[in-house]
């Protein structure tokens, strides 16, 4: 029900935005639908876009559920990709079967380490996560810029990027003629794993308790700092994994433009998914479709990519407004005095 409503709402929003931009509404909507849902390449592109978004948003969700407000997803994503690229450089002649797992694990480790820097500064030195993770984002961008011009630059040293990953080492292409790769399964597994972890494991419960009220966790002698550290490490690991998946699934290279802001966009995606892993997966699909659709739109309309952020913004605001309205209707029932 919720989805039928929000889908109708979304179409309305798109139509209004297109009209405001002076586009042919029918044609534009068709282009968006085609880009997002065409069976030959729409769906695959939607899934491709949703993959990194889903992983980073899961990362945000885990951290926020534990009360650790990680907004450094972008930095962790970049460092994850960087770690994967470093692993690739180090692997050299190793057997192709080894590459994917090493790269992905490398990404997890890189992202987790980057997040842990912030957690350390917070738990040991009281530096707020909100500020340290923002600062680490900026630093990660420069770190990537440096490495692709320095230690990890491709062999000719002419271009600011790493050497291309050999095709045999890339994650397998799933649908011919699209970018869809096996990384989508990684995201799927992550959704289920995070869901089970948060909802059904002892550690997940501890994490939620720490997030909901750290003082309760303290009175019950639960390991508060340790749980927060773990939550941030998982969060960073997921963001790093996203970077590694995008690196070894889509680009095969690391360069300045590697980041598509997935780390920042993860926050609204996670929040709109209510920080519930399964809904975060759905929310990521939604946004994946939105990206795939609007990308297609910009190809064939003269308006260019300026319409994309406007559509996204309107969609997010409409979700917020709609959600709040529905909550208001529900609230009186919910709270007996």
């Amino acid at each position: 029900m919720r989805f039928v409503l929000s889908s109708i709402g979304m179409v309305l929003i798109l139509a209004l935005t297109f009209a405001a931009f002076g586009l042919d509404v029918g044609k534009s909507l068709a282009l968006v639908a085609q880009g997002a849902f065409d069976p030959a390449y729409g769906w695959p592109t939607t899934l491709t876009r949703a993959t990194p978004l889903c992983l980073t948003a899961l990362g945000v969700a885990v951290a926020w559920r534990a009360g650790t407000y990680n907004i450094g997803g972008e930095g962790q994503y970049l460092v994850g990709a960087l770690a994967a690229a470093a692993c690739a450089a180090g692997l050299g002649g190793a057997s192709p079967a080894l590459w994917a797992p090493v790269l992905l694990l490398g990404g997890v480790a890189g992202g987790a380490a980057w997040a842990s820097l912030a957690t350390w500064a917070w738990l040991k030195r009281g530096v707020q996560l909100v500020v340290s993770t923002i600062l680490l984002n900026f630093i990660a961008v420069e770190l990537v810029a440096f490495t692709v011009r320095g230690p990890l630059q491709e062999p000719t040293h002419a271009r600011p990027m790493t050497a291309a990953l050999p095709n045999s080492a890339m994650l397998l292409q799933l649908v011919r003629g699209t970018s869809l790769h096996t990384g989508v399964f990684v995201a799927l597994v992550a959704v289920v794993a995070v869901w089970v972890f948060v909802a059904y494991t002892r550690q997940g419960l501890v994490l939620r308790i720490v997030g909901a009220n750290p003082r309760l966790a303290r009175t019950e002698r639960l390991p508060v700092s340790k749980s927060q550290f773990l939550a941030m490490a998982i969060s960073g690991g997921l963001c790093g994994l996203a970077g590694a998946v995008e690196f070894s699934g889509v680009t095969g290279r690391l360069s300045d433009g590697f980041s598509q802001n997935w780390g920042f966009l993860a926050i609204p995606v996670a929040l709109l998914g209510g920080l519930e892993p399964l809904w975060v997966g759905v929310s990521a699909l939604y946004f994946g479709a939105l990206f795939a659709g609007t990308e297609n739109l910009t190809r064939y309309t003269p308006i260019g990519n300026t319409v994309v952020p406007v559509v996204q913004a309107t969609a997010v605001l409409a979700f917020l407004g709609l959600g709040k309205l529905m909550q208001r209707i529900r609230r009186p029932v919910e709270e007996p005095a």
Partner: protein
Amino acid sequence: MADNKGAEPAKPAPVKTTLKVALLTPGPVSDSGWSALAYDGLKAIESDLKAEVGNQEAKDAQIKDSMRSYAQKGYNLVFGHGFEYNEPAIDVAKEFPNTVFVSSSGGKTAANVGAFRFALEEGFYLAGITAGELSKTHKVAMIGGPDVPSIRSTFKAFAAGAKSVNPDIEVIEKFTMDGQDVAKAKQATLAAIDQGADLVIHQANAAAQGVFDACKEKGVLAFGANLNQNDNPSGVVLASAVIVAKPAFIELAKRVQAGTYRGEITTAGMTEGAIMFTFNPKLADKVSPDIRKKIDIASLSIINKALKVPMDSF
């Protein structure tokens, strides 16, 4: 579909219906520079050849999807405006033998993949000569936006030009790492002028106004780049190193339309009329006839290929 057998690989056939041309740019086409000039070329193809055109700002992860989408829709030419489109084109082109993929620079080719590069270095070399002759402080500056090979290559040419007439000249180089941050461009330029530079060239795209503004504030002269920026309201642009994209783009599109395009790496420079170095007539008094003569001689040498301007390959 002409499927050739034998040694000759498959090549795109002539276009019988409406020509369809797509442009991929690494930045916004509104950047008054690198991406804008390609966009203007695309618009020229649209109006002169009555072609259907599309364009998209596509980076890293989006590049292949974008190429495939255009190819699937039957686009005949997909032009990626940067070296970074070369390798993805090689991959994607295998799936779409009837679409020609061309990138701005890049070293790999296939039957339907090529690279096409403007030798802006030639214009920068001439600007360098002018700067080397005019500088009183013996210091000149280059302000770059993003630190990318194409920009570095032009800067090398500028430095070489300056040193060719003034071997002791110091060339200051600064990158803001951003083609849109006008304030940073201005800050970098001010810093360069503070360090003694009295002539400044840029590769700052949309942020170029910051360079010109800084020059105006400090009373030094600047060079325009990519587009003819001599009429910039700041009034400090002494000359511009210009890419004349339109004829080159139309020529390329025509060859694709005729089915005569072969995957190759070509360079369009002053010889082909694709690069110009033009003085600002309003500031004519700043340049002595002597210097103009030197520039004319150098231009001729470049056109005659007697003078080879340094150019990085990437």
